[in-house]
């Protein structure tokens, strides 16, 4: 099956998402709430494109729109530029401290509305990727709470989570760097809770929080590794070298 994206014919399978098809064919569609390792969410609406099919033209979110039939996709139509511009302007007011949102506003020429009231010191765009990541790891320490304009990401009752292991996967997937992580060489503080960090027995590099290493070891039914991955590889290659006399 073939769809055309901005006139470029792109081969694809039925059920594939437009964002993936575009990426494979070298067409850039901006997005914020999408992460390759997690299912699409369609909530930031930055990846909106126009799809023409059977005489209809609709705005869809490319990250969750599955291609079922051949269609023509436009990522730079006047309608897309206008709506995406407004979406980005709204996001800039919601997260004025986000460099990534500011960059996208610049690249995609989002109009600046003086009238919009900015949230002070905010970087979060409430896409919920952090909560999705946490949930998919089986932790579920953070969730989106409340609804409407009161929506937020938080631990239960805003208190330090009992299940959080400080693995900072939430921070890793966050598109706007909104999850605050403080490390001082001894502890990592995240979501209002401090976790002691473990050092590699070889090189002394930080390998993660004790809690996350314990949890991973527990799941695997093994001991907490004494060395970091690098040192482990080195020690194994040392053993091999001495065994075979390389």
């Amino acid at each position: 099956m073939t769809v055309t994206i901005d006139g470029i014919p792109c081969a694809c399978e039925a059920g594939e998402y437009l964002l993936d098809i575009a990426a494979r064919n070298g067409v850039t569609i901006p997005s914020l709430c999408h992460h390759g390792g997690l299912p699409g969410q369609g909530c930031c609406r930055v990846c909106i494109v126009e799809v023409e099919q059977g005489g209809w033209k609709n705005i869809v979110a490319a990250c969750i729109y599955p291609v079922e039939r051949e269609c023509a996709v436009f990522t730079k139509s006047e309608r897309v530029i206008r709506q995406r511009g407004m979406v980005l302007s709204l996001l800039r007011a919601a997260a004025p401290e986000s460099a990534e949102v500011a960059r996208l506003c610049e690249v995609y020429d989002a109009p600046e509305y003086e009238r919009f009231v900015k949230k002070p010191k905010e970087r979060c765009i409430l896409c919920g990727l952090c909560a999705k990541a946490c949930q998919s790891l089986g932790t579920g320490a953070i969730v989106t709470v409340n609804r409407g304009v009161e929506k937020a990401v938080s631990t239960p009752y805003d208190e330090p989570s009992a299940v959080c292991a400080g693995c900072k996967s939430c921070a890793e997937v966050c598109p706007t760097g909104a999850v605050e992580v403080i490390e001082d060489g001894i502890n990592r503080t995240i979501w209002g809770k401090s976790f002691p960090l473990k050092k590699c027995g070889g090189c002394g590099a930080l390998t993660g929080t004790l809690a996350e290493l314990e949890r991973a070891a527990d799941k695997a039914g093994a001991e907490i590794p004494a060395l970091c991955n690098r040192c482990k590889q080195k020690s194994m290659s040392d053993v091999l070298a001495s065994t075979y006399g390389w």
Partner: protein
Amino acid sequence: MTRTVLVCCGTGCIATGSLSVAEALRGEIQKSGADATVETVIKETGCNGFCENGPIVNIVPDDVSYYKVKPKDAPDIVKGLGGEPVRRLLYRVDGKPVPSQKENPFYAPQHKIALRNIGIIDPAEISDYIGRGGYEALQKALAMTPDEIIGEVEASGLRGRGGAGFSTGRKWRIAAGYESNPKYVVCNGDEGDPGAFMDRSILEGDPHTVLEGMAICALAIGAAEGFLYIRDEYGLALKHMEKAIRDAEDKGILGDKIMGSDKSLRLTVVRGGGAFVCGESTALMASIEGRVGEPRAKYIRSVQRGLWDQPTVLNNVETLANIPVIINEGGEAFARIGAPKSKGTKVFALVGKVKRTGLIEVPMGVTLRHLIYDIGGGVIGDRPFKAVQTGGPSGGCIPADMLDLPVDFDTLTSYGAMMGSGGLIVMDDRSCMVEVARYYANFLAGESCGKCTPCREGLRQMLIILTDICEGRGKDGDVTLLEEISATMLDSSLCALGKSAPNPVLTTIKYFRDEYDAHIGDKRCPAGVCPKLTAFEVDPALCTGCTLCKRTCPVGAISGELKTAHEISESACTACGVCREACRFDAIITAPKRRCGV
């Protein structure tokens, strides 16, 4: 012979004391001694619709209806049974008391299908429902093939009563076409539009018709399990529905081997947690599954992948209530009622500044004027009509010059409003349309799920701008900006809530632009509603010095002696408007605020 005294025990009448009325009537009948020829039965029924005149008592077969009944009226009512009706409790048309609902202008033009049993049966008694022909349609459907059932529903032209108006028959046909099992049938009872109580009344007053509709749907699509999602605030509806399911299962009508056939249907009531957005079908299903009630994109429809990713038919309460009638009378008979593309009847909750408020059912295609003036009796105090808000937060405000539009699925939509699920809020010249838009923006800002940017952030900015306009901080260009935000919400939001959320703003801008301009340009609220832009004055020529305003003013801002013109202190007045509502001589007038709070 049996005479039945039907005491309305819908939520409205219970609130005005109908349970004690029923109790008093029971006591009185016992006291009066049994009549050898007539057995008198007291029944507690569902909502009669004319809630503002409750508690309502109907006597059949005599066809006498009493309104605003108090427990102390019980002796007179019992004495009058079979004889002369109690005149003081009858409804009056132009001063003349009328015993029959057929002569009551609120009831006479109505055509009841979905509400056919409500007010007549005791919703807690399955035998009452069966006595009115209940579950005959299910029996009939059991002898039909799924294709035949769907054929009847398609022929009826029935469209979803929740607001979107999708063809019910087609929805069933698509779901029936999928081979994947299990399939589910879901009843959407998460009614949440401000001022709407259509589904509530059906769930409370005739629960079995909903169950029968669901059972027929289950036969048609091949489902053996279903859910009724009812908002937790509807306590009576939940109680009646849970009892109805138990009773139907005990009688072998639901559960395993329904009515002795090889078909089964397990129905479960799920209590909604009070989120408006859970009325959206995909959010509702997420909620049933135990997930956060957030909608998903409907690129794959829930008839294909709904509850637990299985084919699911979700129908509104009122839609389901029509199904037994369609199966019994045939789809074609049903299609003869209503408008060309909107068949059948529609239940409306007629509220606001209208003389006769309540729940009504009329054939689709009647005009708004007929609803508001003929049935509703016109605007309270015969004030000028300004607008009617239809369809709740997804709908719009329709001005006076469009009162002759037919009410159906498509006409109002083409004017930017929508018939929606059936809420009709009538507004007079003392309603501020900018404030109405602000009210709905505020409602939705709190009730949006907050998942997608256009809806959450669009509503946040919209609410700030509308509040500014109402409080005298409106700026040039605000209206254009509201329109631009609206355009993006309509086009780019994830679900129907966001896509329709700008409708109240857009319709008020379209039809009442002058009010926006007055608020922004002149810092004046023409309707005298927005407190920061309104001052009240007493017109000394009209004031009779009755002191009513002085006594009702909550802040003591009005001074004046009996029989002399009163005065309002602008510095003390909070412009709440209570005095203006109270004044019977229209002597309280609005004036531009001198010290505008900008």
